[in-house]
């Protein structure tokens, strides 16, 4: 399934500045693997060595929060990558 991935600003250095990119996959894990193929290094900024979502990153399939990478997109066409911000 082709999905649009909306990329948080702190991760856009991996996408050449693009706010949204395309990726293929039925599950979040597959989408992130495809993202990594297209934008090397991006997955490591979101997922740690143990395969856990890093604590400053949140993933949403549409408006549904993803807690487990094996979760399916279930027809949702947009994956949002949200990154904690700290500026004030």
């Amino acid at each position, binding site marked *: 399934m082709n999905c649009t991935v909306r990329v948080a600003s702190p991760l856009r250095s991996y996408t050449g500045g693009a706010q949204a990119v395309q990726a293929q996959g039925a599950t979040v894990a597959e989408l992130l693997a495809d993202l990594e193929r297209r934008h090397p*290094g991006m997955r490591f900024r979101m997922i740690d060595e143990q395969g856990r979502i890093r604590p*400053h990153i949140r993933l949403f399939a549409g408006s549904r929060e993803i807690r487990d990478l094996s979760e399916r997109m279930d027809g949702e066409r947009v994956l949002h990558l949200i990154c904690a911000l*700290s500026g004030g």
Partner: protein
Amino acid sequence: MSLSPAELARYSRHLLLGEVGAAGQERLRAARVLVVGAGGLGSPAALYLAASGIGTLGVVDCDVVEVSNLQRQVLFDTQDVGRAKADAAREHLVALNPQISVVAHALELKAANVAELVHQYDVVVDGCDRVATRYLVNDACVIFAKPLVSAAIYRFEGQAMTYVPGRGPCYRCLFPDVGAGVTPSCAEAGVLGVLPGVLGAIQATEAIKIILGIGELLIGRLLTYDALAMRFGDFAFARRPDCAVCGDHPDICAPRDSVARGAAVPPGVRRLAPAELAAMRGEPGQQAEPVQLVDVREPHEFAAGHLARALSIPLGQIERRVAELARDATIVFVCRTGARSAQAAAIAARHGVPRIAQLEGGLLAFAAAIDSSLRVL
């Protein structure tokens, strides 16, 4: 006490709203709101809260006004440069609305003083620019059961959420732990001047709604704003039973200062003090060991000032440009504070780069200890 003729005149547009009216305006007058940080977010938030007639407004900030603040911190003017922000803020807010009381807290918020401060107020609006303060304020509001409106900004993007005790998740439920340096500050990454105006106004709106008891709040919702795409997002998130402060078995039962935690430096990566790096660099051809300096800051930071012979590879490009790293030299990663270079070192280590070092404290420390002519944004 009913509203005075001067108050009736000043707040006439509020009084026309059924959701506010005279009773609501009296509630605003009786309310006490603490604004943490008189920066990009705190400026518009405090201005709107003052204009709206919040009876007591506290402003906490330990910094002084710098000329680079004026691009977005609309609470100040050019004559304020060099003044304590809390004092300058108080002066401007009272000038805007002499009918309210403004309290300047020119101090750094710490575990030792946060309880006393938060206890004095009904609602907290957090617009600070430090990760440690963000968690300290969140934890204090959970522990002392105070509503909190939190927001943060970065370049062209902002986020906001509201915590109300007993009604939803806190900031730690959303982001359990964010190490310092993982998310760059405005000073490191830049920010569109008008961006905090949008988020600060949202914070003021939420605070006023909390006081009036009207509308739907951002409880359990992360509001995101992307100024470039001109797109708002609204993401639901739930309370975590394992949250360290609001969970079922909290670890944090009293406010505590966070230990600054940057990205972990992997084993085998040398951490260099500024003097060690200076000695290693030496003069070309006279180096004790071959060294390749790699500056992982963004291009605009590099352009403003960098160490001679440094190669510029922004952190986001390290992974795909790892082949450019010499295998016959010690790779020394440098950045502004040492946070990004630690992440770059971790990436290089994963790719098997044999000799890796990282400048502890970053170029800020190097400029302070070795080369004061080095310009570091």
